């Protein structure tokens, strides 16, 4: 089982306590009704899906309950780092 470092609990916890919540650092547009259809589509559906280094949101759902960001390699499934929500991209 993978151990994931929760930046809020500040310890490594078993993977089973966590839930993936998709790509990180996607900001909701300030004025959604002012968006063009294409921009809105990009915001809603278009994701990076890289092979390799990927920024993701995770939630320590069966622990402290917090969302945080993680950098994970999608090939090796290794977590490079995790950091609190709101902190700059790493």
């Amino acid at each position, binding site marked *: 089982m993978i151990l994931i470092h929760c930046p809020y609990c500040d310890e490594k*916890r078993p993977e089973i306590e966590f839930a993936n919540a998709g790509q990180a650092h996607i900001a909701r547009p300030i004025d959604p009704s002012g968006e063009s259809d294409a921009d809105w589509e990009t915001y809603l559906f278009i994701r990076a899906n890289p092979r390799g280094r990927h920024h993701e949101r995770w939630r320590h759902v*069966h*622990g402290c*309950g*917090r969302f945080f960001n993680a950098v994970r390699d999608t090939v090796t499934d290794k977590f490079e780092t995790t950091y609190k929500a709101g902190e700059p991209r790493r």
Partner: protein
Amino acid sequence: MSEALIRYEPVPETPCVAAGVTISLAGPMQRFALRARRAEDLETVLKVRLPRHIGASEAGIACLGPDEWYLRAEAGATVPTDSGLPVAITDVSERSICLVIEGPRAAEILMSGCPLDLDNFAVGRATRTIYETVEVIIIREAEDRFHVELWRSFGAWFWIAITNAASH
């Protein structure tokens, strides 16, 4: 009024006694889910000190998350709720039951379904985690005694899983 109702528990009231471990149902107690951005606000309302470190517990209050605490007190206890401060205090007494896992094999039995390393889980620590598929709050009361808080509706399944583990 509620005293007149018959209490129904989802697990047997007779403890499960196995080699090195006893699993029993704790009596009814008052439970409160406490939420606040600032711990100081809750401290002002409750007039107690809150543990600030996630996973710590102090005087019946466990810190579960950065803005979440869990208070357990004796049945009938009340807390002030009309403070005007931005805090949420919710009585969740009947949401959970508490099972007491006691004996030299207590940690071993819990680790049969919980991925945490409970051998290195200090006395006084409390955390939300998973046992098999059930979300639980584990509180280490003493070296050989754990309290496991779980939702009432998961009680029957949890009882089967843990008593099975205990009898192996």
